[in-house]
């Protein structure tokens, strides 16, 4: 047993690869997190408002996403769909689409639980004042659900970030891809993957800190009872 971390750290090429990969992983996660959240808003609203057909489709979609592995979804999006529909995208676009779809399923389930948890008294009061149902949803249910569910959404986001490494399997040059490449050159597998683990943990801590700040800013109105 001999540990040779220096074989990775003294090579500027390897360090650049790691930096580049980490950046791509982070950007891809943030982008698909945001897009997935927007999609989840639509999905969960369709379910909550019991929109005919669309509500059921949203429910089925959510269950399919949550009960199948990300990697199968990714391979279908990257290899199946383009062949079926006849289009060609760069690797990262396939990854972005697959991750967005995946994120949206998990987020929509959390949001739906959030809507259900909003205090009924609030809604009844608004209804008694003659506020129309769409306005009740937008101004009363949604903000409270978001505030209550933000911690769950953050935790889910970070959990999903830790699964994004699979995009390396379709050739996206993310952090895991960089690690696998460096491993294939240096054969210092243990050192490489320990380094990667540390970077992943560092990034998830950064995400956690960023999301806490965001929460404090967005939901300042929410009094700490």
């Amino acid at each position, binding site marked *: 047993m001999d540990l040779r971390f220096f074989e990775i750290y003294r090579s500027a090429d390897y360090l650049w690869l790691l930096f580049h990969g980490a950046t791509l992983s982070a950007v891809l996660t943030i982008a698909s997190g945001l897009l997935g959240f927007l999609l989840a808003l639509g999905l969960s609203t369709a379910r909550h408002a019991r929109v005919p057909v669309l509500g059921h489709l949203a429910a089925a979609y959510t269950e399919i996403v949550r*009960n199948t*592995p990300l990697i199968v979804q990714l391979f279908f999006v990257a*290899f199946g*769909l383009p062949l079926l529909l006849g289009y060609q995208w760069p690797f990262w676009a396939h990854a972005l689409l697959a991750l967005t779809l995946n994120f949206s399923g998990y987020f929509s389930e959390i949001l739906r639980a959030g809507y259900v948890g909003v205090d009924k008294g609030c809604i009844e009061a608004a209804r008694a004042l003659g506020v129309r149902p769409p306005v009740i949803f937008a101004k009363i249910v949604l903000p409270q659900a978001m505030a209550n569910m933000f911690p769950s959404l953050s935790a889910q986001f970070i959990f999903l970030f830790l699964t994004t*490494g*699979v995009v390396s399997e379709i050739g996206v040059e993310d952090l895991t891809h960089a690690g696998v490449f460096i491993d294939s050159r240096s054969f210092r597998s243990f050192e490489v993957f320990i380094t990667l*683990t540390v970077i*992943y943990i560092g990034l998830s801590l950064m995400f956690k800190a960023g999301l806490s700040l965001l929460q404090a800013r967005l939901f300042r109105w929410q009094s700490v009872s």
Partner: protein
Amino acid sequence: MRDALIELLGKPEGIVLYQLLDATQFTIYLSLIAFGGGGLVGALIAFLRLLPNRWAGAGALSWIWFFQSTPLLMLLFLSGLGVPRLFGVDVNPWTAAVISLTIYASAYLADVWRGAVESIPAGQWEGARAVGLSFGQTLRLVIVPQAGRVALAPTVGFLVQIIKGTSLAYIIGFSDLMAIGKRWANAPVEGTEPFIIFPLMALIYFCLCFPLSLLARRLERRLGAVTQKGAATAAA
């Protein structure tokens, strides 16, 4: 079963479906072993967390924190490639996959169970100790039966995460549903195009996971109601 499927579906499709279903058994075995192993290690970690010893508690918390923050893929690479190369030993994919998934599951299950035990009011501990039960007896007769109700739904729910997690084991050479399906999707055989194989695999995974998700939800609804009623009775 192989011949029946071929007769029913024709030459490539029948064989493909048979091989996929045949490989699914390894997905199930790996999930069950990981769940069992993760449950044992997780119970130990949760127990250490509950001990009055400060070091044991800190160790348990670090284990939970560290392995919840580590991607499963990294655990697989470390146990399948990293550690074997570091020590110059051969580790077969079964061992590496079982070790990674066990560690992964243990961190989450320990956290769930720790949370469940901590949700039991302190009065239960104090009351049990006051009537003369030992620490072990209190845990076994008073705390675990109550905490078990709280923990059951998320534990079943986590089994779904484990099943989905096993789909990554093919990366270190484990031969399961994922590995066989990917091989067929790459094969230039008509009827095994990626847009047929991957939805088929998704369907098989779905059939494994969805019943468990439903069970978890039902347990949550039922046992949640029981604890609420219990709390209401206790309050009254």
